[in-house]
């Protein structure tokens, strides 16, 4: 009851033209920034932070959280329409989202992402209000063994992401894991595989690889096919998802919301990890494995929801404990401190009205985001009618700028080009790119938490089996890894969830 009273007071505080203007502005800037490759929400919030110095604490927080939430959806737009990932969190949406565009279902993909973002954002806010502080305390008990086990579970999906061939899927995943080991070893500080290049000490930026692998290779493949207009197949009908598609995606959105909120709460995990883990989950649960990576709406709805839920989830430890769950919330701490507010356990009691007005503003921002996104679907899809040559040139220039903006350096641009060449050949050889990206994103986290766990246990592997949460995740990971292999070995006619495996299917011989 007290929660509702506080929330209504929060709504009362922000439902003024002055505050609504900042929420609207934040959403517009957030969506615009999200569209641009190479610019993520933390960069946008940090860049625009000085602009809020002259504003009140409330107005500046409304603007910055609006940017934060808006950028989550904005990143999906170019991922779905052009296969150019706007943000790292939306990168995974490229995989099935762009395939839906090619099937003439761009509007449906954008619409389901917008709806999922809204549901997930609202879900994470409800969690924030109701059991946020409790969950934060629980999340802090998550140590390296639990992190490793969770990431291991995510990595096991590699076996089911190779939709055409499990062998090639494994090779792609291992390649991604290997690229993830380039740079300074996070545990000992030893230089690994840098070949004397100073620029590689920080590792290979996965966004640069992603831009090359998806955007550049796709632009080149389209130039090669040269069908006239950029969208290769189908019309742009179905500007919003049909009721049946919403029903089909409902559980994916729910799963993405729960998973995203929880991963968002974990310090250091972030929305990108949440989106990739959600994709892994949806790929595992897909009834038709062949459709994964080929325009499966659940694989768009799940990750599209998880990143927004993680954005909301990251606010939970920030507001209740003063611990940032992501890069952007770390920048938001700076914004709070500029105005003399120290986030932590006393924030709700000391600055209750401010916190509740921010929560109310996030609700409004969520609804506004859904409206802006659905209203913008039709004009956005018109971009696909441009001639191939013009669109390819535009994508390549965007890829250049996106790569350069990552570190203001040409090294990332060359990585974009090399990844583009690799992506083109992977496409020709039917090597799926999704496992590579999954390995590249989750691999460094897995290695770091694995070795930190061994430090904790003086080198004993028993640490992974003595902690219940870690053990549950590991068992789930082993089941997820072995089940497709075992089911594929069943005789023909027996139920199978994986039609491609090490064993060649009978009908293909």
């Amino acid at each position, binding site marked *: 009851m007290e929660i509702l009273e506080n929330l209504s007071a929060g709504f009362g505080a922000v439902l003024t033209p002055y505050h609504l203007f900042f929420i609207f502005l934040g959403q517009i800037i957030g969506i615009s920034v999200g569209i641009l490759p190479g610019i993520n929400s933390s960069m*946008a919030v940090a860049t625009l932070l000085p602009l809020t110095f002259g504003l009140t604490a409330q107005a500046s927080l409304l603007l910055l959280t609006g940017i934060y939430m808006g950028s989550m959806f904005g990143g999906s737009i170019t991922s779905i329409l052009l296969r150019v990932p706007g943000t790292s969190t939306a990168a995974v949406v490229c995989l099935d989202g762009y395939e839906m565009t090619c099937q003439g279902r761009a509007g449906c993909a954008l619409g389901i992402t917008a709806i999922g973002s809204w549901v997930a954002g609202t879900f994470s806010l409800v969690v924030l209000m109701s059991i946020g502080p409790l969950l934060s305390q629980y999340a802090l008990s998550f140590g390296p063994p639990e992190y490793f086990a969770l990431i291991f579970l995510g990595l096991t999906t590699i076996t089911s992401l190779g939709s055409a061939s499990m062998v*090639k899927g494994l090779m792609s995943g*291992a390649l991604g894991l290997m690229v993830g080991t380039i740079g300074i070893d996070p*545990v*000992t500080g030893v230089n690994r595989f840098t070949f004397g290049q100073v620029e590689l000490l920080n590792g290979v930026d996965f966004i640069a690889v992603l831009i090359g692998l998806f955007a550049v290779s796709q632009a080149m493949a389209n130039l090669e*096919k040269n069908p006239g207009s950029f969208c290769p197949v189908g019309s742009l009908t179905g500007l919003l998802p049909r009721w049946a598609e919403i029903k089909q995606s409902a559980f994916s959105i729910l799963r993405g919301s729960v998973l995203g909120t929880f991963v968002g709460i974990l310090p250091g995990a972030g929305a990108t990890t949440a989106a990739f883990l959600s994709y892994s989950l949806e790929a595992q649960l897909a009834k038709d494995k062949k459709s994964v990576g080929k325009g499966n709406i659940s694989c768009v709805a799940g990750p599209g929801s998880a990143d927004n839920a993680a954005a909301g989830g990251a606010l939970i430890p920030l507001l209740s404990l003063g611990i940032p769950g992501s890069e952007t919330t770390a920048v938001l701490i700076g914004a709070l401190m500029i105005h003399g507010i120290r986030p932590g356990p006393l924030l709700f009691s000391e600055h209750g009205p401010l916190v509740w007005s921010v929560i109310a503003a996030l609700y409004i921002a969520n609804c506004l985001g859904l409206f802006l996104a659905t209203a913008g679907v039709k004009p956005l899809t018109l971009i696909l009618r441009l001639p191939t040559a013009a669109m390819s040139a535009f994508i390549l220039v*965007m890829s250049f700028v996106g790569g350069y903006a990552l570190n203001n350096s040409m090294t990332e641009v060359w990585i974009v080009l090399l990844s583009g060449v690799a992506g083109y050949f992977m496409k*020709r*050889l039917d090597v799926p790119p999704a496992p590579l990206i999954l390995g590249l994103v989750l691999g460094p986290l897995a*290695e770091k938490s694995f070795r930190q766990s061994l430090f904790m246990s003086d080198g004993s592997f028993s640490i992974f089996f003595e902690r219940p949460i870690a053990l549950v995740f590991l068992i789930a990971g082993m089941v997820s890894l072995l089940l497709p292999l075992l089911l594929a070995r069943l005789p023909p006619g027996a139920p199978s969830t994986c039609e491609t495996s090490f064993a060649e299917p009978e009908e293909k011989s």
Partner: protein
Amino acid sequence: MRGWADRIFGLAMLGVAGLWIHLALKLPFPAFAKSARVGPGHFPAGIAILLAVPSLILIARTWTPKSRGGAADPAGMPEPTGTPAGIGGRRNLLIGFGLFTAYIAASPIAGFIPASLAFILAMTRITGNIPWLKSALAALITTGLLWAIFVLWLQIPLPAGAWRP
């Protein structure tokens, strides 16, 4: 044809895995980290083995009688989904990669604006046969928009060019 492509791909990946294992095992293992038993080279070496095993399977499959006969795809897979490119398509592809490489190489010297204008103009004219006026407009709008957003609004400097003081 696919058998050969897969064989070359498998061999290349096997080579990469071998190189990775070789380099990983040469990495130093600092004394302070010995208690963890897993050093900086062990994880990469393990992953490289993970790459080597499926690479060997892929190569082995290309030697099976089925694949040598050419009736079926060696990895049990359908042919690539992309439509076979004609001579025009391959020409566009090579020009596209060539122009993009030249654009990246030229940008730090010529600067973002001149390099982007030239790149977009060349791409739209050569690969799309788009009329001069439309090509010039596309180049101007795209370059101007990106410059305004990144440099003027977000204050992210793009390559200014070696000729600028």
